[in-house]
């Protein structure tokens, strides 16, 4: 649905918002777990499968079917809870959240209510040199819903509209992580929100519990934003913005809501407590699903599932499987890579820390890994407006391309073409090199002939080199490379020239 122009609200200038108001944030992040099967049934969870091909009587909510908890999902929930510094409940239950919606097969969602599996954690973030402590209220387990697609008929004939529903996603395990109110961020509120979500993304990846691909919805953020007059302690009325599907959007959406609410409040108006929808394309929020007063979800303990009571021994064991804490992790990499502080901060800022780490692990030097991710690949991500990690190239492939360069099979210029090919889905770097015929000519006889021709065509340059002016070789190298259309190893060309002319 496009946004009707009439609903575009006034915005208060950001600086003015901060002169008069203090923002308070609350972030709810849904993480889709990367278990092989769904939360309560054995259907696969693969993204992008044909519609309604990963469903069974259980996740379709058919009469008579019953849920059974995926033990791996509980394990992931506990590990996430521990990594967020939470206490793990000794005993907790699932509850039914009752509301009608066509994408929810049972018309209740199996979730956790007053007994979540993890409570009271904390996360530390660094934003622009300042440290922020984000309190974690809870993390709980629940199931995802199906996906409905609105079908409108052009011409907007009233009534000629319906939806079609695919339940492949219904029942995929979710962990919902809820912060305590985040105060004291001031002007940095949007960046803190972004940094928090980025932190969770990195943490989930390090735990290997989720694909955390925001563009595929495996990490979703709902941003609660409210403003209160400076000096006030009571919270203002908040809005909950949904559909925030990238790190950049998190930052933009929070900033937008601050300006929108600021304008309302500054004009003496009131903020409506409501759900709003973020529009990536237009950069605004609009009112979402209307909520008749406060929805009454009629939660009660799920009678078809028995309580979860993780033994302390199990929790302890899972505690030993946690990755090192992010701060310690960064410190270790900083020391290992030998970057300057500035270089290292750029890597983090670009969201490339784990990508560079993985590329190094796959055999590239830290400098080479950084060069590609922050240069060539960052440029392409920006062009196509996706996150760096959403590019369809893996750290291992980047390392492979660098290895081809190091082996003299391609040069940097050709490497860029290999990136093109891999990103276009033409296969592995080796395959792209072969298919596109990108390998540098390493056949000395072919190269030798080109070198001979270059010497013949530039006798005066050749004479200088014979006379010991090795630096003059550049002109001959250029001529050879031109003839070879760039597909030659410049170092080898230089060697051949010097050899032929008896220099060195």
């Amino acid at each position: 649905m496009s946004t009707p122009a009439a609903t575009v609200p006034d915005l208060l200038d950001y600086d003015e918002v901060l002169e008069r108001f203090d923002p308070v944030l609350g972030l709810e992040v849904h993480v889709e777990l990367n278990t092989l099967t769904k939360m309560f049934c054995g259907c696969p969870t693969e993204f992008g499968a044909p519609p309604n091909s990963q469903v069974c009587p259980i996740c379709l909510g058919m009469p008579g079917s019953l849920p059974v908890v995926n033990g791996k999902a509980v394990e992931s929930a506990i590990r996430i809870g521990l990594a967020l510094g939470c206490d793990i409940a000794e005993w907790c239950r699932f509850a039914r959240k009752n509301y009608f919606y066509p994408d929810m097969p049972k018309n209740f969602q199996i979730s956790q209510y007053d007994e979540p599996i993890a409570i009271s954690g904390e996360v530390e973030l660094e934003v622009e040199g300042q440290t922020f402590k984000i309190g974690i209220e809870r993390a709980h387990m629940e199931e995802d819903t199906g996906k409905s697609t609105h079908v409108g008929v052009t011409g907007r004939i009233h009534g000629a509209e319906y939806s079609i529903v695919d339940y492949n996603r219904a029942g995929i395990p979710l962990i919902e992580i809820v912060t305590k109110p985040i105060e004291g961020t001031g002007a940095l509120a949007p960046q803190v929100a972004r940094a928090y979500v980025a932190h969770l993304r990195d943490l989930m990846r390090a735990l290997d519990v989720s694909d955390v691909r925001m563009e595929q919805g495996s990490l979703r953020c709902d941003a609660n934003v409210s403003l209160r007059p400076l000096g006030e302690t009571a919270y203002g009325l908040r809005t909950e913005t949904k559909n925030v599907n990238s790190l950049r959007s998190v930052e933009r959406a929070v900033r937008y809501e601050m300006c929108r609410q600021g304008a309302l409040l500054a004009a003496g108006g009131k903020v409506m407590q409501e759900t709003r929808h973020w529009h990536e394309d237009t950069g605004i929020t609009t009112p979402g699903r209307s909520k008749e007063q406060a929805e009454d979800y009629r939660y009660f303990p799920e009678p078809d599932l028995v309580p979860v009571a993780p033994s302390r021994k199990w929790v302890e064991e899972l505690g030993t499987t946690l990755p090192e804490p992010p701060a310690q992790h960064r410190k270790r990499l900083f020391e290992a890579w030998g970057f300057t502080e500035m270089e290292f901060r750029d890597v983090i800022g670009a969201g490339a820390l784990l990508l560079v780490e993985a590329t190094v692990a796959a055999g590239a030097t830290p400098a080479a890994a950084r060069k590609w991710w922050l240069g060539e690949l960052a440029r392409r991500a920006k062009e196509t407006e996706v996150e760096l990690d959403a590019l369809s190239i893996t750290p291992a492939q980047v390392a492979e391309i660098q290895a081809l360069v190091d082996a003299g099979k391609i040069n940097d210029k050709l490497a860029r073409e290999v990136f093109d090919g891999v990103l276009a889905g033409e296969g592995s770097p080796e395959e792209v090199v072969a298919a596109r015929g990108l390998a540098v000519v390493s056949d000395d006889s072919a190269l030798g002939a080109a070198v001979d021709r270059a010497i013949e065509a530039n006798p005066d340059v050749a004479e200088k080199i014979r006379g010991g002016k090795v630096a003059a070789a550049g002109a001959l190298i250029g001529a050879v490379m031109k003839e070879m259309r760039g597909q030659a190893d410049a170092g080898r060309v230089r060697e051949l020239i010097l050899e032929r002319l008896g220099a060195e």
Partner: protein
Amino acid sequence: MTDLTKLTAAETARLIRDGEVSAVDVAQAHFDRIAKVDDRIHAFLHLDTEGALGAARRVDEKRAAGEELGPLAGVPLALKDVLAMKDVPTTCGSKILEGWRPPYDATVVQRLRDADLVILGKTNMDEFAMGSSTENSAYGPTRNPWDTDRIPGGSGGGSAASVAAYQAPLAIGTDTGGSIRQPAAVTGTVGVKPTYGGVSRYGLVAFSSSLDQVGPCARTVLDAALLHSVIAGHDPFDSTSIDQPVPPVVEAARAADVRGLRVGVVKELGGEGFQPGVEQRFNEAVALLTELGAEVVEVSCPHFVYGLPAYYLIAPSECSSNLARFDAMRYGLRVGDDGIRSAEEVMSLTREAGFGAEVKRRIMIGAYALSSGYYEAYYGQAQKVRTLITRDFARAFEQVDVLVSPTTPTTAFRIGERVDDPLAMYKADLCTIPSNLAGNASASFPCGLSPDDGLPVGLHVMAPVMADDRLYRVGAALEAASVQRWGHPLLEEAPEL
């Protein structure tokens, strides 16, 4: 030639095993009986003639091939229409599921198939198992074979009536507040509600998940035990299924021995509101157990009287959520989809048209009891009462091995008598409800005809969790002694249909 429909399940299976009759002939005899009497009884909603005869044929082939047959192989069975059976209509007695054919089998159905039982068809019931008379079926009431002007009990009236009317020697019922036991009592048959978690609920269309349990209906105690042992046992598809060996129910039914068994008569389940004829037959049954060597004492379970109100909060609460899925989007009825109305409107119109009055009543009671502001006073308090009732049982079972009471306060009432008086209807389950709340095993066994109206009376026996075998011990002893006293099984006194 013997009337194949009058045999017990155990006898039928033996004759088939010995090659004296074919399973196909047995199935056909029952279809003939159904064709003859079911227009007056209306026990069945759907017959699966083809599937049943196919299953019977496979049993005969197995026998011919010299394969070993199970203890109930080839025995016909009637299945309550609340259990999912692949590709066979499953309506739960509701219009909202008209035409729905599940793409899967309930675990119980799978076990019946694996044991080579022959499923004749699906039996009538109160809509979504809500009721005590089978009058709440969207497809018309089932009638009691003892008196076709009277109710056969409910919700499983179809299953009990089919067994009582010799349309099937065995049936499967489900019991949320008495839906197996109360129909058994008023039709003079045997009905057992196993321990909660003893039989898988996977594929049982839920009414109240924490109370529902699947169990056997039969004409004899041994038949019920044989069926019980086929359907019981752990199922990984039901999280509330107990992972323990099935109690030795068949052995107990064969032993039929109550010597030294301590029997407690529940003080609170009798007196005011109980039909004198019912109390008389109950007392005689207790006296008979004493004669047979049981030690009978009176036991008090002070919170049982709160079972009824607690039940009528818990069951509606769970049902309001369980029945939310019937929303016209993925299966079943859809009403009012004119291309203009919203999904929400179509849901509301469909549920209005597809649910009967009792279902609507309970959904709304449940929505109310779970609402914020009322939760603690209603649902929360009912769950606490549930704890107290469980404690009453625990204390009682420290003193005695089983508890007994009449199964129902009255014999079968007349069709239409209580239709518009929900509270009067609910009272039929007074004695049976505590066992659903506590999850323990219970059963109803015939104990004679009430002298005031000549209708069957049931003895209700309650045993601790996973002590289901004690029910069969008592039932079988009572059955043997009663049949000896009467000179024939009780059902032979029922009028010819």
